[in-house]
């Protein structure tokens, strides 16, 4: 436990040094989203090894992504049928899978730019419109956010008009239909193990 605390202290210290804040920030959805992306970019940009960057990026992503909301929307009607234990396990496995793919993608970055276009507010939810400018095309990426306390948190990512959560939902729905919720959890856990082993 001592080592964990030490590490946590160092991490906090580093984040503070680089101008990061572990506390809630005020600001509009677009400001908050931009600050997370900027922080991630400055981590990606520095010279340290991937092993050193990864935990910092995990932290940044986990602060901005509302895993529970994404998990809940992914299971949709099956969420209502799941037991509390199943829900908890699903959130854990789902967030690990999501983090793995997300980190794997940003690892392969080259020289793309992110442009923040505009935001659309509706009471406690918002959409932030961004575009990734690559060598050949502009890829629209929109973030759906909801307000929790003073934080705008991501509950869906829409890339080229395709909702990430809907995509997971349609796949997982088929799997639950065939193998039940426990079957799905087993598949997710196997996939996580496979991905961790291949790392």
């Amino acid at each position, binding site marked *: 436990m001592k080592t964990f605390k030490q590490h946590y202290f160092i991490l906090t210290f580093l984040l503070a040094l680089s101008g990061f804040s572990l506390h809630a920030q005020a600001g509009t959805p677009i400001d908050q989203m931009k600050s997370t*992306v900027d922080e991630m970019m400055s981590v990606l940009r520095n010279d340290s090894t991937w092993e050193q960057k990864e935990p910092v990026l995990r932290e940044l992503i*986990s602060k901005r992504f509302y895993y529970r909301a994404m998990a809940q929307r992914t299971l949709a009607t099956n969420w209502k049928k799941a037991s509390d234990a199943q829900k908890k396990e699903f959130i*854990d496995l789902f967030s690990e899978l999501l983090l793995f793919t997300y980190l794997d993608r940003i690892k392969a970055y080259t020289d*793309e730019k992110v442009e923040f276009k505009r935001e659309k507010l509706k009471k406690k939810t918002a959409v932030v419109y961004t575009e990734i400018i690559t060598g*050949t095309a502009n890829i629209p*990426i929109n973030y759906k956010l909801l307000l929790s306390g003073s934080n705008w948190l991501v509950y869906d990512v829409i890339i080229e008009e*395709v909702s990430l959560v809907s995509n997971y939902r349609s796949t997982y729905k088929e799997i639950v239909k065939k193998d039940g919720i426990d079957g799905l959890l087993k598949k997710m856990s196997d996939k996580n193990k496979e991905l961790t082993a291949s790392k």
Partner: protein
Amino acid sequence: MKNLLTILFTAILVTGCGQQNIRQDGTVASDPASHTTFKPIMVAAKSYERDRMSDSDLDALLSLEDEVVEVYDPIEPFNRGMFWFNEKMYLYVLKPLSKGWSFIFPKPIRNSISDFYYNIRAPIRIVNAALQGRGKDAYNETGRFLINSTIGILGFHDVGNDHYNLPRQEIDFGTTLGHWGAGPGFYIVLPFLGPSNVRDGVGLLADYYLYPPAYLVNNDLEINTNYVIIRAIEGVNEISLDAGTFDAILEQTLDPYLVVRDAFEQHRRALIEKDK
């Protein structure tokens, strides 16, 4: 090939994110690398969930309906077979070729090749924009084609997009049919070309006649080999510019077939809805 490419590209979504902006200038105040004691801490994602909304508040805010794009897939066993075939083609033929291709041509050249291919597809976009009654888009696409083919040196530079604020659009006969009310029909995975459906498959056939390389017939055979080679080069070039999106889907998702099917149908439906 275009649909396979579309889906490869679209599929960036499934992998969570595209690539991030990395500027080469500027340094970061603190560098974790300098701390030898710095080791990965698996901060559990759930540790952030404590301070967030109560379950009931969240349930009230978000819909728990099964909103999915329902895909009619009566020939799923056949489609899965085709998907398997395309997957092997990708892994064992196209991907190795694209590695070699990247080795020969640096990225700026491959980007230009991609722009060139985009430009020669202009007749498809112009005619279909007109067929959908989208005068402004037809006009813009014509303008871009003229600018790119001249100032853009035969289309090797998409100056229309980069300097004339003419963003790229996907307009084809499949979206024209959709615009006038045609449903997607059943889902079908085409060999080499990838995910499609009845509507978009008909669209592909029609658009063939608006694609200039289709007229570079080199023999009296049934198959226009020049066309096939031109499209194959396009495919290899596009794969070389993509950072392993399809690999990520194959490796990281629970059922890549379903992931691609849903992404394709969502994407096509949104294209048609957007311009209605």
